């Protein structure tokens, strides 16, 4: 393909590489070490979204990747610019999201001298990237960038960082973009072992109480349709983890909601009484399993995952099938037959009636319950992309919204990064402009990256930020209430900010809703405005996320914490 070469600088070559990788948007912030690159961005065909803090660039790249399925790209300068990306990179690593982060670096000759704005970012990010590179020879730049995109997006996806010393970006090279990537140490398995698949099929056929436990791997391998076909054929109920939301239709009769700490009671009971757990693209996270020793003790475990290191990491697996979830499910469905689940599905049906996810509407007054807002959003714009921050609102968003399609729920799962949601929603909206994108946030989380209002306004990205404003760092407050005798140490943040004025100060639309009857008009006004909008929902202060499995307990030891009034 690329027979002839062309002379160009490293910075120009970087842009050429991005074109060839199909990158149309990058999220970034300029700086001294990046000047040659930003000079090339100026006038290029690539859309650059200028954030106000580099952390937001990493989160936005991730939100973009999650919403589109493409690899997200962010760029930050050397030193503090690079270190500000770290939280976003760690977040992408924990949730296996493909992003490529470019960082400026001081000139090669100054590396190691504690130069101005120097940080050893490859050293810092080694444990939180799938792989990273410091380019030491400008000639290697195209090959390295080719490899970076390949590594980020294949196998178990993840973040890759490329550190670009300034002299590398000004040096002239003969540009040549390799057709193929040759990495002898990297060769992910896509095709599952057919013998293992047949073994799994025969176990499913004999199973009376099967449960499908599906996670983020279903989303990243684009396997939602295959999962649905499989679940329907074998008639097994499905629970999806936080990162797996949307991997199975939320309104499907076989759907049981989320498992684990704030999962539905019936999902947890089903796992505990299951005789066969079919795990797909999950990693048996502690928020799902609770006390490991008591987790699904009656169940044989089939584990489908692309990462062999996840097999038997936390829970002993009887039938591992390593490979791509989409490929494996599409083959498994051919061999699988209906399980013996008639009575089991009836039992789960009873549990669903007996222990529904619910909350108690206030008997008097017209205050707003947070769950009510989520249900309203679900009614008004069921096709929206929901992006959450971290805390109580995140759990309510997972519990009370029905995600019908993959890539419609975007949340910080593994790392639990407050401040993630709003910048990630900017990335999602940039990637999917035709979608209504709603950031569900708390008054705590939103303030961790509220400066990005400037980004949304300047780049004209009309996301809707809903602040579930309870005046507390609500999840921590809930734990203090339950386990620390209501000693609310440093979790009360009441009356700190007027979010409507804050929105207006940035040139965004600000709406406040205090009464229940204001919820729907606020959402409708925000959608109709076509502008970045902040809705300050003033909600009940001490509402709890319910149900809840206390830390360290078995997942069937699940408590009701709903609050009256």
């Amino acid at each position, binding site marked *: 393909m690329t027979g002839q070469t062309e002379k160009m600088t490293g910075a120009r070559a970087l842009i050429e590489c991005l074109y060839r990788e199909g990158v149309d948007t990058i999220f970034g912030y300029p700086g001294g070490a990046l000047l040659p690159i930003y000079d090339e961005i100026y006038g290029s065909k690539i859309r650059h979204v200028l954030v106000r803090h580099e952390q937001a660039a990493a989160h936005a790249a991730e939100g973009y990747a999650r919403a589109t399925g493409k690899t997200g790209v962010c760029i930050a300068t050397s030193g503090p610019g690079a270190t500000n990306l770290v939280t976003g990179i760690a977040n992408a690593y924990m949730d296996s999201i493909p992003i490529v982060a470019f960082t400026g670096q001081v000139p090669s000759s100054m590396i190691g001298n504690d130069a101005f704005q120097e940080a050893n970012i*490859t*050293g810092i990010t*080694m*444990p939180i990237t*799938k*792989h990273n590179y*410091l380019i*030491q020879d400008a000639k290697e730049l195209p090959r390295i960038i080719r490899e970076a995109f390949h*590594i980020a997006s294949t196998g178990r996806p993840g973040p890759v960082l490329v550190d670009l010393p300034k002299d590398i970006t000004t040096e002239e090279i003969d540009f040549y973009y390799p057709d193929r990537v040759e*990495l*002898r*140490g*990297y060769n992910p398995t896509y095709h599952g072992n057919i013998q293992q698949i047949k073994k799994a099929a025969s176990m499913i056929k004999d199973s009376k109480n099967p449960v499908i436990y599906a996670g983020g791997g279903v989303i990243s391998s684009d396997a939602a349709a295959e999962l649905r076909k499989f679940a329907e054929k074998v008639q097994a109920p499905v629970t999806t983890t936080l990162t797996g939301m949307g991997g199975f239709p939320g309104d499907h009769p076989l759907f049981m909601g989320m498992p684990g700490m704030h999962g539905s009671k019936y999902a947890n009971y089903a796992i505990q009484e299951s005789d066969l757990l079919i795990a797909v693209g999950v990693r048996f996270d502690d928020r799902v399993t609770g006390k490991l020793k008591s987790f699904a003790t009656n169940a044989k475990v089939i584990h489908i995952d692309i*990462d*062999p*290191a996840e*097999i*038997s*990491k936390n829970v002993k697996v009887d039938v591992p099938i390593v490979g791509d979830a989409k490929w494996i499910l599409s083959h498994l469905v051919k061999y699988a037959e209906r399980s013996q689940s008639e009575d089991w599905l009836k039992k789960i049906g009873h549990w669903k009636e007996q222990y529904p996810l619910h909350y108690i509407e206030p008997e008097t007054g017209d205050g707003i319950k947070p769950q009510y807002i989520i249900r309203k959003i679900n009614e008004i714009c069921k096709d929206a992309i929901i992006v959450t921050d971290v805390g109580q609102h995140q759990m309510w968003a997972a519990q009370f919204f029905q995600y019908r399609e993959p890539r419609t729920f975007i949340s910080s799962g593994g790392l639990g990064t407050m401040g993630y949601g709003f910048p990630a929603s900017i990335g999602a909206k940039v990637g999917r402009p035709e979608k209504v994108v709603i950031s569900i946030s708390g008054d705590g989380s939103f303030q961790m990256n509220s400066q990005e209002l400037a980004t949304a306004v300047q780049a004209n990205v009309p996301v809707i930020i809903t602040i579930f404003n309870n005046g507390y760092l609500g999840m921590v407050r809930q734990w203090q209430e339950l386990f620390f005798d209501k000693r609310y140490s440093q979790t009360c943040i009441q009356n700190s900010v007027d979010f409507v004025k804050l929105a207006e100060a940035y040139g965004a639309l600000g709406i406040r809703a205090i009464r229940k009857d204001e919820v729907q008009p606020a959402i409708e006004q925000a959608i109709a405005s076509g502008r970045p909008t902040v809705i300050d929902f003033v909600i009940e202060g001490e509402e709890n996320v319910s149900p809840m499995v206390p830390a360290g307990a078995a997942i069937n030891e699940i408590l009701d914490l709903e609050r009256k009034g």
Partner: protein
Amino acid sequence: MRHTLSVMVENKHGVLTRVAGMFSRRGYNIDSLTVGVTEDPTISRMTIVVRGDDEVLEQVTKQLNKLIDVIRVTDLKSEETVERELALFKVNSDVSNRSEIMQIADIFRARIIDVAPRSLIIEVTGDEAKINAIEQLLRPFGIREMVRTGKIALRRGTKNVSS
């Protein structure tokens, strides 16, 4: 339980840090680690002695394989492997006991590689047990300093570790 892993890696800067960092981050214990280039100059071989049960070994192997720069990991079973370690001992010694120490060195086919009025340096190669044994015998004279390379290993016979 101790295992000897032969790990073929890309001969690039930073690879040792990636491997060592993975061990420390995941809480695995390294007893020894040696690294050097192989017959192919683009590949280095790390010989890592790691402590842990079979489950730990399985995780270590998988986590090593996840590193992009790791090409192949082989668990070397001691019965089909030759293992060697090199050690240098600087031992207190003067005319009164020099010949006694040299006799010990002879028994172990060790070599005296430096002689000073009050000390000797002894070089010895062998498996771990042999080096432990000579260390025990030299200790009464006073070991001023010692250094061990850590274990290196190859599979016996024509078959390569990497095949």
